[in-house]
């Protein structure tokens, strides 16, 4: 009998498994008596006298109830016997599937057909060596899709001489009578139209306080600058990172190359600047 059982152990177990999986594949019934969550577990706890009890007491039908010490020990031993046969696993690697696990989730902030109004602060880090230009401005972006947006920018510039320019004028060790640098055609304001392309996205874990999504984007644009002595066309291009924290608030930082013609004493010159700006916006 033992030999017969041994011979047919695996087929028998397969049959049992098929029966079990067929049972498991049966629709799970609606909340049954016993361990169902929520209301009406259709049983009541064992109650002492004077207390309310439901129609039946004790665990629901089908469960074994109280376990003896031996049964408990047996159950714990059954756990130890699980997963002990690893020897044959190596043989079956050829059948293992190629599994790709991806995380596919919604964007934290939708940017499809939405407007973004973003005031900015910018600093011109290149350009005229004698003039320090900072600016405040306003941007209005329209996000067509999460990958493309168009925008308008208006910027008001504030200029002051850098230490080098002041030295030229006031430092008598440099010049005998002082030299005024040719900075007369300074930037007053600019108006640009821009196009943003957002090809890369990512997310960052903010010290376990939350997760913020961001996009790395490229920006190109053109418009005109109002200089002290007139107007000039301008072109710009660069890259930036935009963070989208919550449904309505945005934070961007950009580094752009920008060029325009300015008048100096000897004629016209193409001024090439690098602009670093930061924008904090509202999406609506």
């Amino acid at each position, binding site marked *: 009998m033992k030999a017969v059982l041994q011979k047919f152990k*695996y087929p028998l*177990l*397969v049959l049992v*498994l098929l029966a*079990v999986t067929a049972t498991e*594949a049966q*629709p*799970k*019934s*609606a*909340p049954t*008596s016993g361990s169902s*969550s*929520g*209301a*009406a*577990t*259709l*049983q*009541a*706890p064992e*109650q*002492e006298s*004077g*207390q*309310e009890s*439901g*129609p039946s007491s*004790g665990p*629901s039908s089908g*469960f*074994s109830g109280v*376990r003896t010490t031996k049964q408990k020990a047996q159950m*714990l031993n059954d756990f*130890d016997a*699980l*997963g002990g*046969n690893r020897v*044959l696993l190596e*043989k*079956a*690697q050829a*059948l*293992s*599937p190629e*599994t790709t*696990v*991806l*995380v*596919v*989730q*919604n964007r934290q902030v939708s*940017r499809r057909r939405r407007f973004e109004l973003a005031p900015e602060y910018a600093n011109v880090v290149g350009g005229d060596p004698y003039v320090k230009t900072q600016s405040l401005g306003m941007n209005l972006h329209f996000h067509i*899709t*999460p990958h493309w947006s168009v925008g308008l920018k208006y910027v008001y510039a504030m200029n002051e001489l850098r230490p080098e320019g002041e030295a030229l004028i006031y430092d008598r060790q440099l010049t005998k009578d002082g030299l005024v640098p040719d900075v007369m055609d300074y930037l007053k304001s600019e108006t640009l139209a821009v196009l943003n392309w957002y090809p890369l*996205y990512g*997310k960052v*874990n903010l010290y376990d306080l939350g*997760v913020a*999504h961001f996009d790395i984007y490229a920006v190109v644009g053109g418009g005109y600058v109002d200089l002290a002595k007139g107007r000039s066309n301008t072109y710009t291009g660069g890259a930036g990172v935009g963070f989208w924290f919550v449904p309505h608030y945005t934070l961007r930082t950009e580094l752009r190359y920008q060029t325009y013609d300015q008048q100096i004493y000897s004629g016209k010159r193409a001024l090439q600047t690098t602009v670093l700006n930061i924008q904090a916006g509202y999406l609506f």
Partner: protein
Amino acid sequence: MKTSIKISRAISLKCLGHSLILVAFTVLGTLSQAASAKDSPKEALKAPAQELARLARVLAPRPSAEQTIFIEILNSEQLEKALFQWPSAFEESAVGATPSGEALGALLNYHNGLRVYALESLLTIEQPEKIHAELRSVWKRTVPENAYEWSLINAKLWRSQWKTVFGQGVESRVRSHEVFQAGQERELQELLKKAPEGTPERVWLEWQSVLISAVAANSDNSAAAKKLAALMSTSQAMKPPPVSMDLMNLTAARLLYQAGYLEAAKKYYERVSKTSDDWFDAQEELAWTELRKGEAQNALAITRSLVIPAFLPLISPEAVFAKSLAHLKVCDYPEVAKALHLFRDTFKERSRVLMALSDSGNTPSVDAFIGRMKANRRLQMTDLGAEAAKLPRFVARDEVLTRAIQLDREFEAESSKFKDLYGRSVTGGTAKVGFQGRLEQVRRELDTRARAARSAVYLRIKALAREELDEISQVLTKMHIVEAELLQQVAMSDRVVKSTEGTAVSEKKGTTGSRDRDRVVFPDDGETWFDEVSNYQVDLKKGCQVGKKQ
């Protein structure tokens, strides 16, 4: 001249005097009217002590000396002292033995804060129709239909005669917390007829009707589904709904699954909110739905969320079983072995905890949980933090346990209150001695009841622990079978390799995760980010195949 002046002065003085008196009367009258206007709401409310005094006079028109003292004490609004005086005034008298006398005594207890005890005492009166009409009216006014105490009353004490005193709606309030079994549909339907529309009690009874319809042998799912649909529609307007929408969505999904409507079932499973404790069960059953559809890769994606370490104390053992089966179906044998080890490591320790709980429901974790439930009335497993691992899985969702804890809280409060009263009775009672014997009896009754309520809580915890142990034991058996099947398949794998060599590679793309057109896709590098939970997608290539030779 003098006379005339005198006369005229007198007249004028008299007139003045009369006027003054008139003005005084007017003023006083106005003042007293104002005072009585101020008092009339209080009068209308009938201060409990005075009302009790009045009722005592009605029941004992020729009071004895002790009864007179009792009434005088009530007139001076000393309810507590009246309680001490009650045994000597009424319990030994003929009036005290009548239904009216018992009802008056219960009312006195009620006004002294022993509300549930008083109501239960009242409900034990054999012939409520013999209670004095005025007293019945006072009881009805004092404990309206929507009073909280009705939800704590032992439903077995309720008899239909009390409808005439408190109204039909109270019966449903008292009995809605009963647990009805499959054979009690008629009783349940009778009770439903009495439950007012739009009340939590009606919702609870309708919910039980849905469950009974769903689990009855040879049940017609469509009947249960129709009732559930109506119930969900009614409950949406209630804030908060007496039965959570998540649980109803889960039940709807189960009914649909049972009837074989798998796609519809999936939609309802997906409606269960991530913040709900039912979410874990919903996801596990969603994995089973995918397995049943033959989409093992989707089942793998769903169970990937469930087996993150933070969730292991909260999931059912069947979730790991589903995961292992899904891996088996795609011949990912190393992952099957990992699932077996995960099951062993997770549920062996959990079984130890549950074994301890099933022996003694009284552990520090249980006591801490009971304390928090008493303070908050409702908790979720996620509120419990690390303590959740030391409690049965359904401890926060089990309505029987929740009610047992509410009863424990109420009876404990009443017992504690009475102990204070009893302590004061030594000095605060009347000069009569011997009444404390009766008070001692009441104190012991309240103590016994409070202890019984606490015992009921521990018994329920033990029952839940045993149920969960049984569940783990059953799944453990199935996991052994999975292991046997694994070994069987591995032993036969050579044949499968030979038969699938050179065949076209099959691919199965997962369909879980976001379906939004602007979705973002990240690789799963094994690190768990909480915003990624339930957003996994698994794509499979050449499951149970070797594929073309390289």
